[in-house]
């Protein structure tokens, strides 16, 4: 299959290794990966902060950039959820009905990585090797908007060498919430503290998830505490093989520096 990769603005700018891993994984599975150069953002940050009018041209750019793609995959539950649940509404409210229809149509072909692997490709064993103790944080939008359920866990369980440990209080938000992390920094930090306590309680080396944004939050907190437990995106774990046991993981914390 020819798969268009939507890196997402945050991954592309701050953690490109996550998009690279997604491409590597899909190519290893025998698919052709294309990366539309004109992609930027899904518009979620604008919509969720109250700038829904300003989100319309961003959505229009996204729809233009991916027009004609057979399948679109993004390594983010949150961005895919915004594409599925917000884009068309926001466009329609602005009177852009054509854009809304196009966005709806595009959303039908847009998948979060774990959903694409398990539901579209029908595989749970992607042939990965990752010899580490790992705990999984189900990010809120993957869990409650996309309903990815245990798909990421199915994928992780099939990874050779990986020891999966259950995260207590897994379904509680890490406190990221986009601009919430800055506008309500204290409450966000309180939520993060409890999430980190649970992560550290597992004695995992790695905390993984399907969203680089939430991982940047959890990882940023763990790194600040010099905790040693690092955050690694699900795509990076699934892209790892015996030949490449330590891919370039930019979400690893500062403590190693």
């Amino acid at each position, binding site marked *: 299959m020819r798969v268009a990769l939507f*890196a997402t603005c945050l991954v*592309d700018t701050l953690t490109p290794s996550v998009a690279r891993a997604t491409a590597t994984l899909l190519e290893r599975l025998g698919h052709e990966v294309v990366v539309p150069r004109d992609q*930027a953002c899904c518009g979620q940050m604008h919509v969720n902060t109250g700038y829904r009018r*300003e989100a319309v041209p961003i959505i229009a750019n996204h729809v233009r950039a991916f027009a004609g793609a057979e399948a679109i995959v993004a390594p983010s539950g949150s961005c895919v959820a915004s594409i599925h649940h917000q884009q068309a509404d926001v466009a329609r409210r602005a009177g852009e009905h054509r854009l809304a229809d196009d966005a709806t149509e595009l959303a039908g072909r847009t998948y979060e990585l774990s959903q694409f692997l398990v539901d579209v490709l029908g595989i749970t064993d992607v042939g990965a090797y990752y010899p580490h103790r790992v705990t999984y944080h189900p990010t809120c939008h993957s869990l409650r908007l996309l309903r990815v359920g245990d798909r990421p866990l199915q994928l992780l369980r099939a990874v050779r060498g990986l020891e999966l440990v259950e995260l207590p209080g897994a379904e509680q938000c890490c406190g990221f919430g986009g601009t919430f992390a800055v506008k309500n920094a204290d409450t966000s930090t309180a*939520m993060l503290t409890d999430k980190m306590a649970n992560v550290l309680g597992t004695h995992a080396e790695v905390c993984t998830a399907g969203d680089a944004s939430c991982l940047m939050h959890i990882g940023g907190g763990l790194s600040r505490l010099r905790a040693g437990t690092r955050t690694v995106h699900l795509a990076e774990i699934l892209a790892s093989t015996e030949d490449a046991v330590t891919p370039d993981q930019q979400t690893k914390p*500062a403590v190693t520096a």
Partner: protein
Amino acid sequence: MTAVHLGMPALPTAPRGVGHLRGDESFPAAARSALRDGQLRANLGHATTTIRDKRARVVDELPDWAELREAGRALKAATMARLDDHLEELERQVTARGGTVHWARDANEANEIVTRLVQATGASEVVKVKSMATQEIGLNEALEAVGLDVFETDLAELIVQLGEDKPSHILVPAIHKNRAEIREIFARTIPGVDPGLTDDPRQLAMAARAHLRERFLRARVAVSGANFGIADTGTLAVVESEGNGRMCLTLPETLITVMGIEKVVPTWQDLEVFLQLLPRSSTGERMNPYTSTWAGVTPGDGPQEFHLVLLDNGRTAVLADEVGREALHCIRCSACLNVCPVYERAGGHSYGSVYPGPIGAILSPQLTGVEDNASLPYASSLCGACYDVCPVAIDIPKILVHLRAEHVEAQQRVTPEAAAFRALSTAMSRPWLWHLTQRASRLGRLIARGRPTLPNALPPPISGWTRSRDLPTPPTSTFVESWTREHGR
């Protein structure tokens, strides 16, 4: 939006200076203090986890929960679509059964009506059933201002009243207090209390019971709220756990009920759905211990005078917002509070309104007008746990986002934030400019000076992040850039 405002006066919102819908400070400021209260965090963490687990157990055992929830949502939506008809039918039926209906535009009118009605009885004190509507309008303060004594009879409301505190939860107003703190309040404030009072829950309940029993027996006037007002029979319903409500609703000569207009349901049969949804969602019980219903007056049995005060206080304005109006479907179960990670940490007082938590964050700003509670729609990480548990499927995250936009669009001047978001929108909709912006972010590498993370001390608003979290140093190349370099276009 402009279309609504053309030629149509803005509908009145809840007035300032009365009631408890507005806080003294913004949510982030109030939360900053509350988060430092370790006892509060411990009490709330324990209590919300307990109720949350109980609710999950009793909801999971119902195979038709999803259908019930959809029925509840549909009933509320249909009722709101013809709210005026149902309210007039309720008025006709209550009147036909010997009650008197009063219409209160806002908190001031409602307080005046109730004060006048109490004064007309000649009574000097009032017993109260736990009621959110009367908390919302500040009825206790209004009655006390004319020299009347007001006694809350719900155990948790009593704790709050005796402690000269404020409620912090819709269902469990004293959820922020633990047993030891309640013992201290009782020992200090209840006249003639046993000096050997311990924090054993049974002892505490018995102390409250002894204190209240005397007041029930001598009360001549009671004030209640209502969980439901049934239009086709003129029946009011109160759902409770303790039985104090039943005492108030049956012993006094005069009963005054203050009900928000959104509490009306068309038919008696509708209770079939709501009486299943409510107790399981609120206390995590299959059925609540006491459900009291009454219609008008019955000669020789119960109160001989009954008044129903129908309260608007901004509700019609909420109804006019086609996205936000779903907030009026709320049946005050508190399930959204109990699962909310923000509520669990910041506590109910941080919201500044009697309606805290996720539902409060969408209800309070709509009742007062968004600008009077502008920080509340942002008091959420949009995790969506509230929507999942809401028994009438109110899409709280969607309304939060809608109200954020209403706030942004209400600004007359361009705020620095708006300027930044507009600039970013321009960049993110033009690929060449976006690539330039991404390259500009690499200036961060200069201040990182070879370290994998940026310095902790950065100017606002980034400082909000870096105060407690490291920010990775931007990489030398974006993914799209390097991919394009390798693969061509």
